[in-house]
């Protein structure tokens, strides 16, 4: 099978499955929207049957207005030369403290890194993922920092001081209306 055949076959295969919405964005980019429950099955199918052996990344997007996290699994096929992004949404605030989802480590080994990263940054717990402990933020005690409701600037202004640098020449400049007119923390766009 060459690339086009695989792609054609995949398109027809995915079109048959219900609940899945396939959008071919370009020659090498496919977007698939899939419900959270059937994502592992889809990935299994992609890896096992459609040569999508490389998990390029798992991205997480926080949608607080929808009360949802969006997880995007980017898979690449070395044979079809096509990148498939599987989008799924999971509820943001489940009963537990952390949102929960299942790990795809047993399908894609690289998932372990991304899942740990998402666990740290967004607080989504991936069941049966091998390394569900802190990695980058081992010494961070605050909330998962990448969530939209964590205001980093507020935290920074509360936690850190700024060096007060006002030498004579700068004061003179400022009197003339120049210099650092706006302090960094005052810039809000």
């Amino acid at each position, binding site marked *: 099978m060459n690339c086009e055949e695989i792609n054609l076959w995949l398109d027809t295969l995915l079109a048959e499955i219900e609940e899945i919405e396939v959008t071919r964005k370009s020659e*090498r*980019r496919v977007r698939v929207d899939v419900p959270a429950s059937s994502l592992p099955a889809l990935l299994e199918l992609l890896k096992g049957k459609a040569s999508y*052996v*490389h*998990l*390029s*990344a798992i*991205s*997480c*997007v*926080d949608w607080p207005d929808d009360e949802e996290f969006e997880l*995007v699994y*980017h898979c*690449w096929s*070395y044979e079809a*030369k096509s*990148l498939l*992004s599987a989008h799924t949404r999971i509820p943001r605030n489940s009963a537990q403290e952390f949102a929960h989802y299942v790990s795809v480590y047993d399908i*894609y*080994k*690289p998932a*372990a*890194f991304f899942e740990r990263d998402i666990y740290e*940054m967004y607080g989504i717990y991936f069941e049966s993922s091998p390394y569900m402990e802190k*990695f*980058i*933020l*081992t*010494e961070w005690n605050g909330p998962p*920092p*990448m969530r939209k409701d*964590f205001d*980093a*600037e507020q935290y920074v202004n509360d936690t850190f001081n700024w060096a007060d640098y006002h030498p004579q020449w700068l004061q003179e400049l400022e009197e003339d209306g120049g210099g650092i007119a706006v302090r960094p923390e005052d810039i809000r*766009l």
Partner: protein
Amino acid sequence: MRPENYQLVALPNSDEYELFIGPNHPGIEGNYAFKLKLDGDRVISGKADAGYLHRGFEKLMEGRLWIQNLAIVPRICVPDPVPMEVVYSLTVEDIEKMEVPLRGQWIRVMQLELSRIASHLFTFGGHAATTGMYTPSYWGVADRDLALDLFEELTGGRVYHIYNIPGGVRRDIPNGFLDRLSDYLDYLETRQNDYDNLLFTNQVFVKRARNVGVINQEQALEWGVTGPNLRATGLAFDVRRDDPYLIYNELDFEIPTQTAGDCLARILVRRDELFQSVRILRQIIKHLPSVKGPVRAPIPNPLAWNVSMGESYCRVESSKGELAYYTVSDGGPKPYRVHVRGASSMHAVQVLENMAVGQRIEDIAQIMFSLDACPPEVDR
């Protein structure tokens, strides 16, 4: 964190002991830590410890304008910053459905390849230094500095350039730049023989690097290894050719591979890649004068630029491997979400941990450098 108060506790009754490589250690690449559990000089297990370089880039980018972010993305990977700018620009262009003028694309590829040369030269030096050979590191840094001079002339910055913006590059190349670039390439080619004698065919180095840190193709695919490390196992995959971006499909270049998958194979792949980059740059020098036109597409007022809604996943081949950004825009002045898939995020953590097992203590640094791990890409 509170360190222990050092009240002695009973130690487990085994001969294993622990060794910390890093975060500040001559045998580690950057500010990164690797905890080893050893018996004698054999590694029983290794545990990567990252986060020393964490700045929360993804959070920072959500708080800044689209155009402001260009200034911080190159900081994610210091030795090879250009792909970061380019791939960020690519995602924005993809969301905005912008067409980059042809001349802008050519100039971007020129930077990308020059940056690859600089990065590989740096890596050779680091890798050789882990085996106790310091001359290659002196040479590599010196020859890389010449590339940095070219960058300085082109962009104004030695290390961080901020030359690419969504829609193209900031300005056209200076007069006579291509000649000086050509001179540099000539110089590099005259150095090829010296480098071979000094490092790549030097038996001292070859004996040290051969059959160390072997990873076969199957494992590499399973663990998501990309870039030169994957090519060193025999799979000729390169994003530049297989998922082409910019004008790479118009260029004539080869994808060097090795089959052994050990430290030596990895450095040899990089060596061949360096001279493939020279070959690409030669084509650019030949073609660029004939590509006329603007170097960037017009963009709206960058300080009040609301990029239209959408999302894009773009990837490029950086010197470390596959580098990808996932950018989401909600139509606002700032990105809604940018996810950086660092090129070394796989081989600097999981692959390294797996490869360290059973190796000898003196090879750990070499393995890490041969994988060309870039810790800031992991930490972001």
